[in-house]
């Protein structure tokens, strides 16, 4: 369903072809990170810290090296010492500890052996002596006066040089006079919230194979961006980028968690030492203990409003717990406060280190925490004012020119359109089903541009290869092909979209920030536009006319002076490529760019749910996600992003959490007890795509990957409040927590 029809009548953009890589993925032929095996390949296994924080006194690898099948053992000593100010210093230390283990599960050594079982046995035989150090495990512990340092290498960013600190950022954003506005407000609501660490939960564990030879590491792995894998791996190994080649495998989910590396330099060093290819695949337990979850957070939000529903001021305190390495989560969380006009705003934010795994990006990183708190408080304001929650938001919704928390004016955005679409929807217009109650909330994400490259090669029969460096995480090959088909005017199935390795296409940033369809798509369109100019010139040669007299219409060159037809006989793309040899050789074009003008995306979600007041269970009976896609290139995959983001948010809202014991070890490191939603937990997820085109993209794309995870937690919390009168303030809203609050009612 499309609420706002795009006024432009495209032939391909907005259609739903079968994805080009689909066949291989339904017959089991697609090769993901763990699916390559090389002759003579060894298997790697890690030794991981059993302590949340410890000095590594010694590592004795002799027993492991003597075990059957063992070909190589590496520790931190095998890697060059990077300068602590190097941008990938933390990544290097996270891949393999150097003298100090910063969390339970931190890699301290690795072995390579002939079989998986031998590698596992040898890893268990590596003897590590630890001196246990004091650990900080919570945000409060981290920020307490006199707290031990989680990581002595951390210094507060944006601050004058000083002593090491547990705080990675201390930042304040403000505008107006918050204190006066609060004093003048008719209604003031203030509440505190907290969120546990959660994991992206991609189904494919991290995996790679590295074949080292002739001074070069040849890496096969799944990631959200193989050029970043290349530079990070090269930096950790202390070699030039030219000494690392990364071939992208299909990626089995990332959601931000595969924008960094864990395995590749370790496998490379094991391969270098053993002289054989080395494959490493994480177990699920290792993924949960040793990769990067999203931050935890503690937040306090105060909002003031006039009695007629103007939100006049917001006063926020936010602290994000990011694990053992520097991050900017607190600042980004504050910057994501962008949905309402708020003439007066003050955000005091902290990014706190804890001795837990190094946070990684997770879909709209930092925004879900902030939105959970703010949208809950906005809901309380609506209740106090007796206003419909959509009407209150419509009255205050940010439009073009309104300021984000950072102080920058919004470009053209579609929040009002999204709110109106939900208000008009069948869902919102219908009463909740018997026994269920309703909640809604808003989410925002910036989206980003950054660097992309695309090469488009026209084949002699008029088909085309579209080569990019953006891994296909959820249908992007089809989107690239659609934009190329639209631009060139040829059939989408005559295009072969290719994700090329780091030596076969121009540099392309990692797929994050919902940027692939926007930025890489823009490069594809620019390359196609370049080709059209070339095609027109070739056509002019064939037609014997001046190139200025040739136009490109529906995949063909036309010149009024050519042929007998009215307006000229068209010369199709295939007719031109057939004569390429006679007119100057192959037709190819490359475009590379650093895309500015990413279009922010808003989402509005609505849930109807039931609460079992005797057990605290929440059952979601109806769910609708509305989102501004700019333009939906392939609507099925836009809906898929909205639905997937919604359900990840539902999992975050209901049951997902890292449960640590007193020693900082994760107690629920399995898919049995880290409870991501299963099919029977959910209703169908209704979608409404709103299309407010982004003027900075040739087809209006905003990017849709991330915003969908921002609204669900508050949407559900608001519905629970409507159902029970209880305002949940702690994530997840698991049955024990809900029942406890119901008991206290």
């Amino acid at each position, binding site marked *: 369903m499309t609420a706002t029809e795009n006024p432009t009548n495209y032939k391909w953009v907005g259609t739903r072809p079968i994805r080009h890589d689909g066949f291989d993925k339904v017959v089991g032929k697609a090769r993901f990170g763990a699916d390559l095996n090389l002759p003579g390949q060894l298997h790697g296994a890690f030794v991981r810290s059993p302590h949340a924080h410890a000095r590594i006194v010694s590592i004795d690898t002799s027993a492991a090296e003597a075990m059957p099948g063992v070909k190589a053992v590496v520790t931190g000593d095998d890697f060059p010492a990077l300068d602590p100010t190097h941008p990938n210093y933390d990544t290097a230390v996270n891949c393999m500890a150097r003298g100090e283990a910063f969390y339970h599960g931190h890699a301290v050594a690795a072995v390579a052996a002939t079989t998986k079982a031998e590698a*596992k046995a040898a890893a*268990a035989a590596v003897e590590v002596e630890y001196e246990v150090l004091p650990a900080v495990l919570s945000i409060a512990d981290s920020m307490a006066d006199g707290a031990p340092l989680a990581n002595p290498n951390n210094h507060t960013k944006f601050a004058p040089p000083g002593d090491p600190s547990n705080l990675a950022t201390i930042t304040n954003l403000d505008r107006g006079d918050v204190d006066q506005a609060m004093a003048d407000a008719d209604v003031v609501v203030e509440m505190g919230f907290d969120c546990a660490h959660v994991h992206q939960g991609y189904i494919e564990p991290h995996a790679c194979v590295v074949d080292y030879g002739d001074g070069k590491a040849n890496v096969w792995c799944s990631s959200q961006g193989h050029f970043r894998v290349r530079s990070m791996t090269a930096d950790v190994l202390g070699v030039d980028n030219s000494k690392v080649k990364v071939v992208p495998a299909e990626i089995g989910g990332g959601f931000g968690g595969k924008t960094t590396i864990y395995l590749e330099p370790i496998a490379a060093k094991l391969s270098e030492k053993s002289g054989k290819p080395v494959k490493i695949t994480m*177990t699920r*337990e290792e993924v949960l203990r040793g990769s990067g979850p999203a931050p935890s957070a503690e937040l306090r939000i105060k909002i003031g409003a006039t009695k007629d529903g103007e939100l006049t001021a917001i006063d926020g305190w936010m602290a994000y717990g990011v694990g053992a390495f520097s991050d900017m989560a607190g600042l980004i969380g504050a910057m994501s406060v962008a949905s309402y006009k708020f003439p007066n705003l003050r955000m005091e934010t902290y990014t706190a280190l804890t001795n837990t795994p190094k946070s990684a990006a997770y879909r709209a990183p930092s925004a879900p925490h902030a939105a959970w708190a703010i949208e809950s408080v906005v809901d309380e304001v609506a209740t106090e004012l007796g206003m419909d929650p959509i009407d209150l938001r419509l009255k205050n919704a940010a439009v073009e020119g309104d300021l984000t928390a950072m102080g920058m004016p919004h470009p053209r955005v579609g929040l009002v359109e999204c709110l109106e679409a939900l208000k008009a929807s069948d869902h919102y217009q219908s009463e909740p089903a018997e026994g269920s109650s309703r909640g809604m909330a808003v989410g925002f994400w910036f989206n980003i541009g950054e660097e992309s490259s695309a090469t488009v090669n026209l084949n002699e029969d008029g088909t085309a290869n579209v080569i990019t460096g953006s891994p296909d995480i959820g249908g992007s090959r089809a989107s690239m092909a659609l934009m190329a088909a639209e631009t060139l005017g040829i059939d989408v199935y005559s295009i072969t979209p290719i994700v090329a390795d780091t030596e076969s296409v121009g540099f392309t940033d990692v797929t994050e920030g919902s940027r692939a369809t926007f930025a890489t798509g823009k490069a594809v369109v620019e390359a196609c536009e370049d080709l059209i100019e070339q095609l027109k010139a070739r056509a002019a040669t064939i037609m014997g006319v001046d190139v200025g007299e040739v136009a490109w219409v529906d995949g063909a060159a036309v010149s009024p002076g050519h042929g007998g037809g009215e307006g000229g006989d068209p010369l199709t793309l295939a007719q031109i490529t057939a004569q390429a040899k006679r007119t100057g050789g192959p037709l190819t074009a490359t475009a590379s760019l650093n895309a500015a003008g990413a279009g922010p995306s808003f989402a509005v979600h609505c849930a109807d749910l039931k609460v079992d007041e*005797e*057990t*605290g*269970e929440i059952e979601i009976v109806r769910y609708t996600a509305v989102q501004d896609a700019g333009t939906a290139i392939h609507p099925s995959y836009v809906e898929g992003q909205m639905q997937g983001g919604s359900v990840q948010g539902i999992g975050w809202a*209901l*049951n997902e959490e890292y*449960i640590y014991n007193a020693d900082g070890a994760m*107690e*629920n490191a*399995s*898919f*049995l*007890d880290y*409870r991501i*939603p*299963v099919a*029977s*937990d959910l209703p169908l997820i209704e979608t409404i795509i709103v299309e407010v085109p982004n003027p900075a993209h040739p087809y209006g794309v905003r990017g849709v990957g991330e915003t969908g995870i921002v609204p669900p937690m508050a949407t559900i919390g608001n519905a629970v409040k409507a159902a029970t009168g209880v305002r949940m303030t702690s994530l997840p809203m*698991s*049955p*024990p927590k809900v*029942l*406890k609050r119901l*008991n206290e009612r």
Partner: protein
Amino acid sequence: MHYVAPTTVGEACSLLADNPGSRVFAGATDLVPQMRTGRLEPSVMVDLKRIDRLMSVSHADGRWTIGAATPASDLTHNAAFTAMHPGISEGAGLIGSDQIQNRSSLGGNLCNGSPAADSVPGMIAAGARAVIAGAGGERTIPVADVVTGPGQTSLAADEFIVEFEIDDPPANTGDAYLRMIPRTEMDIAVVGAAVRLTMDGDTVSAAGVVLGAVAPTAVRVPEAEAALVGSSLDADTLAAVAAAASAACNPIDDKRGTIEYRTQVAGVLAKRAAAIAAERAQNGA
């Protein structure tokens, strides 16, 4: 580790007796994950699924005989068994996904020794017996006497359960099993409650109430049974059942639930299961 698949009970007994550190298995849905994480390192894995007697379900002489290695799906898809013992069938049917259902067995679910085993409370409420084989021959004991603590059973190292015997219920009897899990599937019970009632008109003439996941083993709740017998399941009775069930709890705080939560919800589930069991008893399950 070596794998062996005997085809007779005697052969299996010999293998266990001759191989210290050996383990029998059926579905291995718990054992294999324990092996993968290194928590379990058996010398020999004795696969019981090639022994016909352990893989059969039969009904004769007023009782069901269920092979201990029979997959749960064979029970839940057995219409006659499910009609007669719906509470046991639905307990077995809650052990994991469809994938797990095709592997997990009553024998494994019991001998794994988890207090949260979904099929166990219903079997105890029904007075089921376990037939145990060992080097010294066979013996039969109540299912309630098999598990002695978390991960612990009363079986000797060379013994294993061959089959379960479940007598046909008296007339006008119904049972039910309910559990609380955070999701709708794929979780381990946070609380489980089985209730079996025999009705004389509107009055309960016999009752069995057994809770799972709230104590080191599944526990029978005599106080709840006493409250039920002679009652017509009025609100006061159900409140008394809930209170007795909560009082019988001796749970732990862990990643799956709190003491407070388990204690409260045990009462809720016992009361709800009683209502379902009564309805089944009266409607002639």
